[in-house]
């Protein structure tokens, strides 16, 4: 249960191809941090740097105040759950579980005690003598988690642990992982490309893009107040437009493509505005005094309890996600917004 700090980490494979660019990351004891980003953003490389599988060209890795930058992977005492689970096919569940304990020369009776404890914790009782190929995907995953945890690692790393899990079971497995993590209070780095996954499990989310962390904060803040276009886009702010100029008289007015928009809070370095489709509404007759844009519906896509409408407005194409389903394509309508729902982004 130690504290992890990465500072100024650089990883590049060949010249010009930088995987991590001066990455800084600080994680507290017992905290679960999700690294979120598209493939190729460097999240898995970050994980491999922490694990010791990738040696950064520059930078420092500290675990619990100890510099481990030059410590080789097998001496770092880090538990890893691989995307493929990576169970040893020629060993039974019990031998898989106790593999790390045998390497550490843990005495037999203590090995039994620790093994049994983790088996109980993850509900693997009765499977001890099975081989990995005889287990279901979910069981394999729990064995992988148990194997990583039983060595009492300083840090737990998880690489896309839910990507091979049936979508219907994901939420349950996620809750289970979270519960175990809470119980053991283990510092965990959780890599995923799925925003729902990251927001659902993490104490803090670090959104990565092209080798750097664009924004790192609590899930609700990441979701509601993204700071950059990239994060906003990743969080589903589909309507992002560059700011043309800031109103000279009234500071709460910005000009986008000659359309005036009223914003809640203005940042003078603001370069873009972002509007989340779910925070916009459509009306035939706008309520007096409300902020609105006029537009024409060009397309609609059914989403079950809601409909996503695409509109042609003065800003360009705008998407609106609403539960009000009685509009039809071709109709001229008003898009209503609240000024505080328009985000001003600086980059």
């Amino acid at each position: 249960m130690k504290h992890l700090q990465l500072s100024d980490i650089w990883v590049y494979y060949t010249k010009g191809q930088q995987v991590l660019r001066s990455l800084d990351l600080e994680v507290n004891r017992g905290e679960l941090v999700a690294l979120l980003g598209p493939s190729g953003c460097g999240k898995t490389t970050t994980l491999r740097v922490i694990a010791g599988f990738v040696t950064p060209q520059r930078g420092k890795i500290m675990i619990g105040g100890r510099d481990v930058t030059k410590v080789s992977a097998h001496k770092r005492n880090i538990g890893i759950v691989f995307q493929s689970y990576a169970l040893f096919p020629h060993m039974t569940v019990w031998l898989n579980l106790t593999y790390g304990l045998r390497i550490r020369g843990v005495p037999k009776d203590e090995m039994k005690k620790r093994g049994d404890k983790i088996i109980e914790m993850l509900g693997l009782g009765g499977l001890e003598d099975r081989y990995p190929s005889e287990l279901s995907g979910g069981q394999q995953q729990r064995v992988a988690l148990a194997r990583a945890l039983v060595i009492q690692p300083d840090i737990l790393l998880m690489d896309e642990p839910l990507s091979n899990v049936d979508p219907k079971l994901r939420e349950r497995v996620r809750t289970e992982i979270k519960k175990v993590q809470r119980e053991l209070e283990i510092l965990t780095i959780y890599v995923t490309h799925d925003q729902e996954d990251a927001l659902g499990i993490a104490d803090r989310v670090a959104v990565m893009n092209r080798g750097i962390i664009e924004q790192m904060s609590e899930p609700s803040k990441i979701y509601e107040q993204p700071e950059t276009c990239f994060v906003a886009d990743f969080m589903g702010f589909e309507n992002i437009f560059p700011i043309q100029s800031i109103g000279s008289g009234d500071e709460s007015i910005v000009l986008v493509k000659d359309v005036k928009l009223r914003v809640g809070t203005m940042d003078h370095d603001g370069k873009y505005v972002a509007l989340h489709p779910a925070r916009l509404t459509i009306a035939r007759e706008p309520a007096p005094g409300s902020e609105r844009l006029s537009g024409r519906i060009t397309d609609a896509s059914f989403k079950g309890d809601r409909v996503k409408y695409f509109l042609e407005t003065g800003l360009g194409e705008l998407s609106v996600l609403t539960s009000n389903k009685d509009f039809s394509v071709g109709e001229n309508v008003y898009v209503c917004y609240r000024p505080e729902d328009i985000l001003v982004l600086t980059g």
Partner: protein
Amino acid sequence: MKSFFCVLSLLTLALLLSPIVMPLLISFSTFESISFPPQGFTLRWFANVFNYESFMNGFLASSSIALVSSFSAIALSLPSSYVLYRHKALKMKGLMESLFTLPMLMPEIVLSYMLLLFVCRALGVVSLLSLIVGHMLVVMPFGMRVIYASLSNLGVDIEDASVSLGRDRLGAFLEVVLPNIKHGFVGGFLTCFMVSFNAVSISLFLSYGEAVPLPIAMLNYLQIRYDPTIAALSAMLVVFTVGLSAVVEKTVGFVSGVR
């Protein structure tokens, strides 16, 4: 239409299998020269095979050459396969993979000729060593292919998992990688063995007075005599090869794993 294709496929099968079945039938024939249909029944030609010294020596030569060349080929394939398997970001990885298995697609006669030139230059004269080296070079792509395939199927994660649990790289390789590719070893070895055993051109070019591999001994015999002894030997070789293939099939799957 359906029955027409059924008949056609049966005919194709007969065509395909006849060269394998023919020697089996002829080998029991009492007739003094190779002819069809066979007449009578005798085991004389089988006895002949065992009494003919060149065949026995040839079998011994072929087996030992196959054994040693396959073993060295596998030993050399392992490190190269490992490098290709571990280094995802290796430059021109696809090209490397192709280059390692390219000799497999070369006409063996061309390869043999080049080897004759090269081996004679490098090792001075044609000797048992050159014969073994030649065979090793011919069979190595096959061994490489099988071992690389079994490593790739295994994936790199389990080695990393072992390391994360506290084993160093070498220990991880020995403890979790090797035990899981042992089928690849057996399969690769047997494949190499069969390819070496059946490699006629390479033996033809590189064999010499003292070590005459079986296929060459058979060719030599045919030039002197034309009796069913060769058929008997062929029949035994068919059984031998099919037996080996069955073992390979059981271990890695010859059809799916090799070509």
